[in-house]
């Protein structure tokens, strides 16, 4: 709680929230119809509506952030408001943690409960005997109870390289932050640039790994619970890295324009929190999806 009370700052009205609501509406309608149409094999407008929605969302984000930046640069914001932003961002990251938690939960449940039971563990001998005769519980699950086979993704090679890349990117981003706080703009620019490049390399290698999985290993989204958890966890993580890279790129452009001071750089801090969060998720992924 602040002891010295500053002026209350109440932001003015804005068109962007309603634009954002319409964008999410179009995305939801478009995605829903797109999925339905592609299942039925019909032509339709779902994909177009989805594309318009995504475009509108991007326009909204651009415009909203632009207004925020202008207001912030003209010194309108109080300490209390920037404190609200910090707390809001922390809670947003917490909600993201819980989102990944749902998929990690599915992974742990499948590995420690569902598969052993299908293999006859505990009091489920008859489940195995009658429903899935001959099924052996194992992880990675390279042969499903239904008989679909696949190959496991090794942790050596690309995944290890990617782990190193992301860990290094966390360090470089930290040094960029230190550079910002000590007003060493060159260090800030260079380190932030390196972080973005590392993010891009990570994404490129991730695409390579997916192609390797589909082409060489026969590991697909349809390969049973191993492939399901593998692709959803790494896929959602990849989406977050993509978003994080975009955030860092925006920050980079703002740094080039001379934004941020050693005392006032909430946007930079929020972006770096997000990036560190994405890294921590990857470390969890590497341990539980690839290695163990």
């Amino acid at each position, binding site marked *: *709680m602040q002891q*010295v*009370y500053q*002026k*209350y*700052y*109440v*932001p*003015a*009205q*804005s*068109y*962007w*929230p*309603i634009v954002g*609501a319409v964008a*999410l*509406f179009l*995305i*939801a*309608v478009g*995605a*829903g*119809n797109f999925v*339905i149409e*592609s*299942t*039925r094999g019909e032509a339709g407008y779902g994909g177009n509506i989805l594309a318009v929605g995504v475009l509108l969302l991007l326009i909204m984000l651009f415009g909203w952030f632009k207004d925020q930046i202008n207001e912030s640069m003209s010194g309108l914001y109080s300490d209390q*408001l920037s404190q*609200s932003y910090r*707390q*809001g961002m922390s*809670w*947003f990251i*917490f*909600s993201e943690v*819980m*989102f990944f*938690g*749902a*998929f990690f*939960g*599915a992974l742990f*449940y*499948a590995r420690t*409960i*569902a598969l052993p039971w*299908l293999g006859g563990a*505990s009091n489920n001998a008859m489940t195995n005997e009658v*429903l899935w005769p001959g099924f052996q519980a194992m992880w990675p699950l390279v042969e*499903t*109870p*239904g008989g679909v086979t696949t190959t496991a993704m090794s942790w050596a090679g690309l995944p290890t390289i990617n782990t190193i890349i992301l860990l290094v990117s966390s360090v470089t981003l930290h040094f960029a932050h230190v550079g910002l706080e000590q007003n060493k703009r060159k260090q800030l620019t260079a380190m932030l640039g390196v972080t973005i490049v590392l993010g891009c390399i990570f994404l490129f290698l991730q695409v390579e790994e997916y192609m390797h999985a589909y082409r060489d290993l026969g590991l697909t*989204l*349809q390969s*049973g*619970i*191993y492939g*399901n958890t593998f692709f*959803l966890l790494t896929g959602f993580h990849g989406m977050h890295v993509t978003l994080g890279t975009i955030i860092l790129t925006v920050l980079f452009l703002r740094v080039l324009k001379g934004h941020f001071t050693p005392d006032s750089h909430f946007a930079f801090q929020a972006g770096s929190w997000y990036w560190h969060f994405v890294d921590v998720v990857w470390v969890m992924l590497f341990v539980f999806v690839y290695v163990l």
Partner: protein
Amino acid sequence: MSKATEIISPEHGAADPHDTHDGHHDHHAPSGIMRWVLTTNHKDIGTLYLWFAFIMFLVGGAMAMVIRAELFQPGLQIVEPNFFNQMTTVHGLIMVFGAVMPAFTGLANWLVPMMIGAPDMALPRMNNWSFWILPFAFTILLASLFVEGGGPAFGWTFYAPLSTTYSGDSTALFVFSVHIMGISSIMGAINVIVTIVNMRAPGMTWMKMPLFVWTWLITAFLLIAVMPVLAGAVTMVLTDKFFGTSFFDAAGGGDPVMFQHIFWFFGHPEVYIMILPAFGIISQIVPTFARKPLFGYASMVYATASIALLSFIVWAHHMFTTGMPVAAEMFFMFATMLISVPTGVKVFNWVATMWRGSMTFEVPMLFALAFIVLFTIGGLSGLMLAITPVDFQYHDTYFVVAHFHYVLVTGAIFSIMAAVYYWIPKWTGRMFDVTLAKWHFWCSLISVNVLFFPMHFVGLAGMPRRIPDYALQFADFNKWISLGGFAFGLSQLIFLVVMIKACRKQGEPVSDRVWEGAEGLEWEIPSPAPYHTFETPPVVK
């Protein structure tokens, strides 16, 4: 966009470089519909949430009328079984996500800033975004009823494989509408939590906060923790149904029971999201009309926090008959029964607050008293359901339906009505039509018990839930249940009339304090509350 609205405090105002901005901020707000579309004012957004919730309550209620009309007599009378299933499903989804949750969020918007001495919510533009997502989300959900093959018909719990293997194409629309509802809830909750942590007036220390604020703080935490898990659950349903994954299919190494674990990990805290703010409301109203301070304030705070923490380790009591090791059944049984301790603390404290108080029975107090009695009935039937071996008998019967309607209708909904009657004179500056409001209360109270109490009996006798037809021996009770249902539905039209009259500012002007025994910051300011409540931070002693 260019003009920022500011409120200047006395200490800094004169020297502040920005106070050239207009101090009177009401007159450049757009009028007409754009006022509501663009508003960033917590009171306007609160009003929008409350009216949206009320409209959804009537829509969901209309679906309940279809259900009760079909069940009036045994045999298939009025609707197709598939349509009946769509009605039970969408009724549940609308009441949970469209009525109860937005109503509480609306109350939080109206009241939290006034109660803690803040000028507005912490993030007002995001507040607007959170609200306006909701009408779109429910448009999608309702539109899905018209998709070829029908709307969602798998129950609001959308258990796999009902929602994966056996569902219609509209499942995709259901999934995406739940996604954007979740985004709305998470943003709304972040806003509430940041407002409470960061925007309290000087002197408003944690243990001076009104209980409504405390309960909402904890509710917001629960929302941020579990709505993303719901998003994960619907995503897995989507990929299982449309993209060939097998999270919930044993043939691919998944497990349909896993769906229930993930769903109820969200679902049980969700239940408390719908009741904790109700506890806060009752804790505000009872002291006012008993003219005594709340008994055991600190224990109320700790009890709320305990209930919230316990809510994360009890989810599988919804799944006792699904198939779990005995050790797990025992754990979830005892953890669930533990919740009755903090809940008992609350009921005890409300009763102790009234003990030897100078009681009067205005409309908000009537609803609060009905809440205490009827919610406790729902709590006790919950305790019965918590006992694993007994639950084997009750599971999926009308006993469960009776239980959760007692906690949600006579619990959550009654508390919302109590809250609206309690605070609406402050919002409009006028007293509502007390005579009609009393009619609303007594009609609701009698009909709701005719509606839900006999469900205990048919449930214990074995009538399963979610069926359009039933065995002949349940016919008499079901006739009464349906009649009670129709009467309860009609009673809410009285509420609609009272609300329309109140919003048109008909009625006697009220004093600032409105109720003789009311305490708290919101009663210190003029009635109706000014558009921006606190121009300067109030001093809290």
